[in-house]
């Protein structure tokens, strides 16, 4: 009986990778623990070790193949006593692309909920910001690289800008967002810290009080809870408490929100938490162009900025304008799709879901307008209100919990400022009111997705 070797998942979010190199060839004897292949993900090159013993009978995926799905069979091994020639590709194995999953956790279809990998990213209806000049060219860039480029550009521009955090330098970033910064700027400006969030956040605040411009990376914002006292009590409040003397030009950045199957402590959305605090600016971009332009703006801003990225967007590519210095104003939402029947407001990864929902709604005769908040604080309420005065209906979408959330705030503002324009009560789409579960089916049930947005939009439009 031959043994199948499958493409391994090397990180919680990996879906596919490149089979860079085979280190064993057909006919080689393999002992468990032997490195048999090298696989490249978007973050790193990893070695694959054999688990079983035997003879490498057949390589099914040649080296250099990219886009190899996790769980696809990449080779077959003959077990002891088995003839290599007897080993053949079973129809079962050949069809084994992603292994079939239990019904309850089947991958979402394009209209599904939760993580949605299958559907193509919807085209943006309004690709250009007014800030982008006519005739500008674009380069497809991942959010990860756009963030890196923003930091590199600002570090070139201002010697007071430095980056610090766990694994930002030699390791090149836990999520590779700081890749190659160490090589260009050296260890004085790209500083590896111990695992000590409270300490290095406070140290960064002190450096900012002294006039430097730290970019403090949290490996994830979940860990920033260890540091939240320094972010709020020291960074956000000191300008006020000092009568305007002590500015704190600092950026706290890192991935925020649910990753994939990492459980409750690693999957929390802090938009509402930081959005609550005067003295902070809070940014949560969706696409790569905004990520770049707003991170540059954040680094230049003389105030403390909490910059919430999304791990599940890091590897996504979007067009970024080829401009020497592309900076966007903080606090301006973007209308990503013009519509007349209902306003969908979202930020960060939920923007993609809202756009998908809008496309699906269009097929059902509902013309949705999609607003990407981009900044949580200061909140661009005017853009939202203007839209609601036109559509008379609103669905507030966010990844985090609903209670006391960003959507609650927007709904309040709309009720206070545009009550007479509303044809339906505002609706909220958000995570269920429980810690994020680990089990695939429960995780999917917990997180809001495209289908929830469609349902809420139909509800406020009084359509069955």
């Amino acid at each position, binding site marked *: 009986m031959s043994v199948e070797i499958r493409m391994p998942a090397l990180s919680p979010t990996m879906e596919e990778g490149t089979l860079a190199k085979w280190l064993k060839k057909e006919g080689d004897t393999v002992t468990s623990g032997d490195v048999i292949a090298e696989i490249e993900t978007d973050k790193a090159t990893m070695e694959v070790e054999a688990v079983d013993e035997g003879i490498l009978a057949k390589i099914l995926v040649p080296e250099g193949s990219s886009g190899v799905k996790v769980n696809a069979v990449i080779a077959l091994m003959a077990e002891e006593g088995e003839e290599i020639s007897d080993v053949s590709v079973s129809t079962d194995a050949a069809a084994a692309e992603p292994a079939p999953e239990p019904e309850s956790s089947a991958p979402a279809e394009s209209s599904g909920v939760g993580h949605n990998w299958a559907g193509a990213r919807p085209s943006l209806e309004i690709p250009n910001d007014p800030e982008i000049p006519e005739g500008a060219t674009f380069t497809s860039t991942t959010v990860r690289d756009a963030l890196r480029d923003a930091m590199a550009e600002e570090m070139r521009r201002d010697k007071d800008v*430095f980056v610090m955090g766990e694994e930002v330098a030699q390791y090149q970033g836990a999520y590779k967002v700081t890749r190659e910064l160490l090589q260009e700027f050296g260890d*004085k400006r790209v500083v590896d*810290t*111990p695992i*000590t969030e*409270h*300490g*290095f*956040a*406070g*140290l*960064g*605040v*002190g*450096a*900012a*009080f*002294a*006039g*430097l411009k730290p970019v403090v990376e949290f490996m994830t914002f979940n860990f920033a809870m260890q540091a939240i*006292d*320094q972010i709020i*009590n*020291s960074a956000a409040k*000191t*300008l*006020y*408490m*000092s*009568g*305007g*003397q*002590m*500015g704190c030009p600092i950026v706290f950045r890192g991935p925020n929100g649910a990753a994939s199957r990492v459980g409750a402590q690693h999957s929390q959305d802090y938009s509402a938490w930081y959005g609550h605090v*005067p*003295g902070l*600016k809070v940014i949560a971009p969706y696409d790569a162009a905004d990520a770049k332009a707003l991170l540059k703006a954040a680094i*230049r*801003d*003389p*105030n403390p900025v909490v910059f919430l990225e999304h791990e599940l967007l890091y590897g996504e590519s979007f067009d970024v304008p080829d401009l020497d210095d592309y900076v966007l104003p*903080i606090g301006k939402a973007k209308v990503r799709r013009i519509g007349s029947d209902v306003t969908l407001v979202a930020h960060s990864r939920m923007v993609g879901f809202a756009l998908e929902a809008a496309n699906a709604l269009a097929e059902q005769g509902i013309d949705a307008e999609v607003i990407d908040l981009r900044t949580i604080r200061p909140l661009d309420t005017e853009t939202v209100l203007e839209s609601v005065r036109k559509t008379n209906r609103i669905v507030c979408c966010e990844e985090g919990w609903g209670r006391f959330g960003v959507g609650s705030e927007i709904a309040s503002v709309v009720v206070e400022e545009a009550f007479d324009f509303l044809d339906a009560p505002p609706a909220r789409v958000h995570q269920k009111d429980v810690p994020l579960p680990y089990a695939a089916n429960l995780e999917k049930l917990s997180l809001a997705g495209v289908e929830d947005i469609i349902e809420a939009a139909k509800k406020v439009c009084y359509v069955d």
Partner: protein
Amino acid sequence: MANKDELLRYYRDMLMIRRFEEKSGQLYGMGLIAGFCHLYIGQEAVVVGVQSELKEGDQIVTGYRDHGHMLAAGMEANGVMAELTGREGGYSRGKGGSMHMFSREKNFYGGHGIVGAQVPIGTGLAFANRYRGNDNVSVAYFGDGAANQGQVYEAFNMASLWKLPVLYVIENNQYAMGTAVERASAETELHKRGISFEIPGKEVDGMDVLKVKAEAKAAIEKIRAGEGPYILEMKTYRYRGHSMSDPAKYRKREEVDDIRSHRDPIEGLKGKLLKDGISTEDELKAIDKEIRAIVNKSAEFAQSSPEPDPSELWTDVLREG
């Protein structure tokens, strides 16, 4: 050894803090100062002695018992007192209060109300000095209570790892609010708290300004030479309660009286000045009179300065960018 002018300056600076704090206590009793008000009476030698060894550009940061540090850093009594009364003429224009005052001009970085938070911040000031390649040092003052906060040790670790130019001054006044050191600390010799981070430390008689000065000088020389952080544990004492609202029932009156009559930093220096013939009763009286005048003036200023304009409610939340 300090010369006469220097000795008189230390005397004057300590007396200034003492008289200022006595007046603060009085104004608090009159309802002119509100909220929390933590007096520095008894600990004057610590900040005056350390400050005497700092040079232009060195920064200091401390916790909530900060009035003495501000005066020692050269901030005006008027501005400090008017902040205590929450008036427009205060250093934070009335928006900070007793625990939250700053002076960029005097390199005083606060005035922090969260116990221990100033330690990573002070370490960050040192990081900035290192980054800029200047030879300035920062001083982070904190108490025996703050010495049990986790972030203090996170800062110690980074400061030692990166050899940052920071002096940690632990003002051990024996009580963290109402809890005596031995009831809160497994290791009560707080200067040893840097051992596992390879930060040298020393215990100092914090009631003797000249001893404080001598140890500060030695430590700061090492720090400025690039040897990394240093800890000085100042054994000191506060005569008053933790704050104005603390009746201090956790210690005996005799304990306070004993230290006040035998180890008082101001009386100690005064005795030396007179015994060694460096100064005279008349000269010292004149200083006292001059200080009382400054303090009384600050109290008047703090009452006559108007409350901040209501429009100030909305300023300084964010900087224009």
